[in-house]
C-alpha cells in the first residue's frame, strides 16, 4: 500500500506552521500556496461549540483529474503513488487548475506553469519526512503506510 498522509484533528490547532514550512522548502512566492490551513467555523454541536483545523494540500488522487485534463501529459501518477507535474512538458494551459475538484493546483506567473504539492519528493528521497510533517509543532500530521481508522484521523493524501 502507498503512503497516506493523515491529520489528527485532536492535534491540529491551526498555527499555519506547515504553510510557511512549505513556502520555505519550495521557495514559493506570495500567491502560491501548496498548503492551505482550513479552519471550520465554530459549529454548534449538542449545545457546545466545535472547531476543527486541518491543512489542505494535493491529495495525490487515485485517478487524478488533473492528469486526465492535461493535454501535454505533463502530469502523471508514479509507482510510488505521487502525482507529479513534469515542468518541462507543462505548457501553462491551466486545464488542470480547472479540473482539480479540490482547487489545490497553483499557477505560477513567473514560470507560467502549473505547480502543486510534491509531498517533498527531494526530502523523501533523503529519508526525511515532508517539511509540513516534520515541522508540525502539534505533531498532528502522520505519514504512514498503515490505514488509520480512528474517527478523528482525517486522511489528507
Amino acid at each position: 500500500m502507498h503512503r497516506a498522509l493523515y491529520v489528527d484533528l485532536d492535534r491540529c490547532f491551526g498555527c499555519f506552521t506547515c504553510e510557511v514550512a512549505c513556502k520555505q522548502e519550495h521557495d514559493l512566492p506570495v500567491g502560491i500556496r501548496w498548503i492551505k490551513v482550513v479552519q471550520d467555523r465554530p459549529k454548534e454541536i449538542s449545545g457546545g461549540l466545535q472547531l476543527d483545523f486541518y491543512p489542505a494540500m494535493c491529495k495525490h488522487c487515485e485517478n487524478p483529474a488533473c492528469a486526465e485534463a492535461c493535454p501535454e501529459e505533463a502530469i502523471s501518477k508514479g509507482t510510488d503513488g505521487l502525482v507529479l507535474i513534469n515542468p518541462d512538458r507543462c505548457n501553462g494551459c491551466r486545464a488542470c487548475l480547472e479540473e482539480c475538484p479540490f482547487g489545490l493546483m497553483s499557477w505560477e506567473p513567473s514560470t507560467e506553469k502549473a505547480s502543486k504539492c510534491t509531498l517533498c519528493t527531494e526530502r523523501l528521497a533523503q529519508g526525511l519526512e515532508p517539511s509540513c510533517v516534520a515541522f508540525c509543532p502539534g505533531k498532528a500530521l502522520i505519514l504512514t503506510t498503515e490505514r488509520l481508522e480512528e474517527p478523528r484521523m482525517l486522511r489528507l493524501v
Partner: protein
Amino acid sequence: MKVVKTACCFCKPFCGLLVSVEDGKIVKVEPDPEDHMSQGAICPKALATKQLIYHPDRILNPMKREGNTWKRISWDEALDTVAGQIVRYQESDGPESIVIAHGTERNLSGYAERFANTIGTPNRMEPGGAQCYWPRGIACKYTFGEMVYYLFEFDYSNTNCMLIIGMNNLLAGHQAYRSAVLDAKKRGAKLIVVDPRFTNLAAKADLWLQIRPGTDDALLLSLMNVIIEEGLYDRTFIARWAIGFPDLQEHVKPFTPEWAEKITWIKADQIRAAARMYARNGPSLLELGVATDQSPNSFQTARAACILIALIGNVDVPGGNPMYRRAAYVDPLLTHEFKLPELIPEERLKKRLGADTYKLLGGPIAAMAHVPAVWRAILEEKPYPIKAMLTFWSNPLLSYANTNKVYQALRKLEFILLVDFFLTPTAQLAHVFLPAATFLERDGIANYYGQGLALLPMPKVIEPLGECWDDKKIFMELSKRIGKAQYWPWASVEEHIDELLGPMEMSYEQLKEKKQILFPREYRKYEQSGFKTPSGRVEIYSKELEEMGYQPLPIYREPPESPYSTPEIAREFPLILITGGRTSLYNHTEMRMIPWLREIQPEPLVEINPRTAEAHGINPGDMVRVESPRGSIRLKANVTRGIDPRVVSCSSRWWYPERGPGDESWLECNSNVLTSEDPPYDPALGSYQLRALLCRISKGD
C-alpha cells in the same frame, strides 16, 4: 553549506534552530530536534526569518531625519549626535529627563536596563512591565518568596489537569507546551480553558469557561470558595506549609459561584465543575496569561491564582507548578551585578515616575517608571519635564495604550532615538535611526524565559547586513562617547559573554561546543529550605503587603470602565472590547511586512457574534468601524459564534508597513487607538485597564 545551531529570538522561549548558510547567506531556517526545551517544535515566524533579515525595506545604515526625509549618515555622526543629546539633557534637565523605552524581548532587556543606569536615568519603561509579567512575578514573590517571571513553570508532561486562564498557549506560549498540552490531553488529562473567545485552545478543552472580559479575579475567588466549602483543598500541605488559611476561609465565604455568575457571566454549575475538576484530578497545573496583568486589579488577580495553586498543594510538585531551579543558575543578564542599579544615586531614584505611589513597580524588583506618569511628565512637565526618549526595539505609536495621547507626547519630545530594523510608524517622530542586527547576526546567550532550566549559546550565524550593529555594541559605543566607558569595559561582545559565563567557569567558546547545558528540574525544594517568605511558608495572608498598605488577601474589583461601573458610557458604547488576542503569525507589532506571514492573514479582523453582526447589518467580510471613547478604527468583520454577542475582539496592534514611512495606518487600524491608560491604576503596580473596555460598532465605509 554549513548548518549552525542557534536559537530563535522572536519571542521569549528561544526555540532551538538549525540555520543553513551558504556563501555567508542564510538559505534555510529549521527547528532543532535536539533542542531540549522546544523539542523540535517551531512556529511560522521562525520559519520566515529569512524574509525578515533580507527584507527590502530593512534599514541597513544609520540615518537622521530632516523634515520628512531620512538622510544616510555615518555611525560616527550618528553616535556623536545621540551622545551629544544625552549629555545635553543630563546637564540641562538632569538624567531623569531622558526616558529609556524598550520593547519586544530580543534577549536584550538587561542591556537596556544597564544602559539606563549608565546614563543615570531612573525612568525606563516598556509597554509590558506592569501590563505583563510583573504582576504575576511579584505576586509569586509575596506568596512563595521567589520572583518567578511568568507565574512558575508548568509541568505538562506529568500533569492530570490543566487550568489555563487568559492565554492561548497553543499559539502564544512556549513552543514545547503546544505539543505537551495535546500529549497530556491524549493521556487523559483534563483541560479547562478560561477565555472570552473560543480560541484554538478552547476548542480542545474539556471545559471552556466563557468569561466576561476583565473578571478573572471574581472567578478565581469563587473557585477558592468551592474548593474550601467542599473540602477539596490539601489539608496536609496547608497545615504544614501555609499561613493565613483561616483568614482566607472567612474571606471567600461570600464569593459563591452564584455571586460570581452575575459578575463573570459563567454559570455557577460550570464554576463548580471547574473547581472540582481542578482540585480532584491532581496533580493540576495552572497557567495564567497576560490578560489579567492588563487590568487595574492585576496584582490581586495574580495573588489569587498563586493562592489557588497553594490551596490544592500543587506547588513545586511533579505535574503541578514547579518553581524555577534558581539556586544553581541565575540568568546573568537579570542580576543586579549586571544591571548596575547602584549607579543611580538615592535621591534621583526617588524621582522615578510613579515609584512613590506604586511601590511594587518602581522599587528594586521591577525598577520601572509608571507609563501614564511618563506621558504626563512629557505633556505637562509634571513633576518635571521629560525631553528625550531613547527607544530600543519598540514601536510606541502602536504598542502603548491610547495612541492619540502617545502621539501628542512623542511629538512634544525634543529628541527621539529609534533602534530597530525598519522605519516603523514611530520613526516619523524620531530624529536618529540606528540599524540593529537581527538575532542571527549577533552573539548571545539565552536561558528560556529566564527559567534557569537550561543555558544555551546563540552564536552569530552571519555577519550583520550592511552597517547594522549588534545592539550590545551600540550600548558600548554610546557609553564611551558619554564618558562612561568604564561600565561597558569589554573590547568585544565575545569578551563580555565570557565574563557573563565566568561564574559558571566556562567560556563562550566552550558553551558553543557544549551546545546546551541542562539543569535538572527539582521538585519540592521547600521541604529542604522552606519558602523564602518572612514566615518560611506560603503566605496566603500577606502581612508584608498589609504593611505596605495593600490588601493582604486577594480581592475582586469591577473593571473601572464596564457595563456595570459606567452605565452612562455603556449606553453609548454597549459592547465589551478585546484587543489582546494573539496569532501565531505576528509578535506584538512586528512581522506585518513579512510576505509569507502576511499572505495568510493580510488584514486585521474584528470578531463579532452573528447576532450582533445581524443587529448592525454587518456581513462577513464587511469593513466595520469600531469606536471607543478614545477613538475609532476600521477592521474587517469576522463573524463567528466563538464570541459572546456582548463582546467584540479586534486584531491586536496593526499597521500596513507596505504603505511606507509617513503613512497613518497606525491611526486607521491599530487597536490601541481604542484603549486607555486612564486611572484608576492597580494600587501596587500601576497597571491600567488595557482590556475589557467599552466600544460600539457600525458598518464601516
